[in-house]
């Protein structure tokens, strides 16, 4: 991996999280979390299972409402948004779910068409077909277009989910544990795909992971989530040489 002079390529901030707090009942999950993602940057959020990583990115696209704190995505504050403004932002932010979230009752084609038809309502069948095939080509699975999700392997399902995320050409992609539950070889393939995509479409990404192989290849910066706060922040090399016992755990 080439070392980078500057940790990020642009001064433009696409995601800005300030003092984010959220709790479920008496269980405090996030407690004053801060994070900035710059345009073109690939950042990883490291954290133990159950530390609130998924909660964090679900707050970013308004799937969960924080108790307090500010979230700015692409220059828009996420609280008190009108439904159509919120949908507009969601069309520009891709989300790869940990469990893929492919619609079981739909074919791969219908799965990919779903966000297209919903977000870009004026679109003829010909255009939609082209975009579906382009997205499938990006993940190398054109032949599965008329298959059902249940007929695919775990790695293939992850790729189809990625294709569905890419089809709207998002400016930011949020990845929730993209390689968890995959064998190391398939995990590596997904990681390579993520790197290709970031380069090809110039996306910014926020990646949640504790697979250090994936982190090493994708991360420019790493944020460590501990006790609901941003515990540390730095490049992969900085984290690797850190003396902090909590950070060291991830590299063992």
């Amino acid at each position, binding site marked *: 991996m080439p070392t980078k002079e500057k940790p990020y390529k642009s001064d433009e901030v696409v995601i800005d999280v300030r003092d984010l707090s959220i709790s479920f009942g008496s269980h405090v999950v996030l407690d004053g979390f801060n994070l900035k993602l710059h345009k073109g940057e690939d950042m990883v959020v490291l954290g133990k299972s159950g530390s609130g990583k998924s909660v964090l990115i*679900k707050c970013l*696209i308004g*799937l969960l409402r924080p108790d307090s704190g500010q979230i700015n995505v692409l220059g828009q504050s996420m609280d008190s948004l009108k439904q159509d403004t919120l*949908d507009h932002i*969601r*069309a520009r*932010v891709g*989300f790869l*779910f*940990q*469990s*893929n*979230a*492919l*619609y*079981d*009752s739909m074919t791969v084609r219908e799965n990919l068409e*779903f*966000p297209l038809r*919903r*977000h870009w309502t004026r679109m003829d069948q010909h255009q939609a077909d082209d975009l579906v095939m382009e997205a499938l080509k990006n993940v190398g699975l054109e032949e599965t277009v008329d298959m059902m999700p249940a007929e695919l392997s775990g790695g293939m399902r992850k790729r189809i989910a990625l294709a569905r995320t890419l089809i709207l050409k998002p400016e930011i992609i949020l990845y929730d544990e993209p390689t968890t539950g995959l064998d190391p070889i398939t995990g590596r393939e997904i990681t390579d795909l993520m790197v290709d995509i970031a380069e090809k479409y110039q996306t910014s990404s926020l990646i949640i992971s504790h697979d250090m192989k994936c982190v090493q290849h994708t991360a420019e910066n790493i944020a460590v989530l501990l006790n609901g706060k941003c515990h540390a922040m730095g490049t992969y090399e900085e984290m690797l040489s850190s003396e902090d016992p909590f950070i060291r755990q991830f590299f063992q």
Partner: protein
Amino acid sequence: MAIPKKALAFLKQTGELSSFTGRFFSEGFRPPYEFGEFIRQCYLIGNKSLPLVGTTAFIMGMVLTIQLRPALISYGVESELPFIVADAIIREIGPVITALIFAGKIGSGMGAELGSMKVTEQIDAMEVSGTNPFKFLVVTRVLAATLMLPLLVLLADSISIIGSFIGLNIKGVMSFRLFMDDIFQYLDFTDIFPPLIKTFFFGFSVGMVGCFKGYFSDKGTEGVGRSANSAVVVSSMLIFLIDLIAVQITDLLGFN
């Protein structure tokens, strides 16, 4: 006085189900409408429950006729048999049996389907794809169940009556013409409409409970199974409860 845990949980569930139903009325009738998905759900519901409903209805009509016949002969009113059976079917047996089968097949299906969509984040995925999942999944299913159950009941009633005709002809002889004349000589609107109206409520509650249980399913495959199971239990209870209320109302109105 300490309130037992079970009672509290029951009250909590009831409250949540009520607010879920409230949400159906506040969101369901606001555009945009998911018309295509509604039609698809109607088709799926009819397609899935038709064979089961048809078979049971046929058997119920036939068995009822064969069992009632000796008693009616001994009272010397055998000629009333077609009307008595038809009235029992149209007023009570058709609606309730069909609704219970509907709860078992469609209600549990909704609980399991929405439950697994919930735990695999498909509902979240819909929401970020510019779709209101409550409208797309819940409103369409509840409306489809409300509309389809009455249609299925009408069909079940007709099949039951044919079953009865065949049952009657196993032991005795009666022409189809005479059989039908006999039924329609006595049957009037108060026999047909009140039961039909209650089936709309049956269908609505099966849809509502099935979707509610699925939509708030617990994580894991066990949670999904529990949702499907309790969808059937709760909606079956509601069917009997509505039936009980309906009979009181028709009684007050003098329709019984």
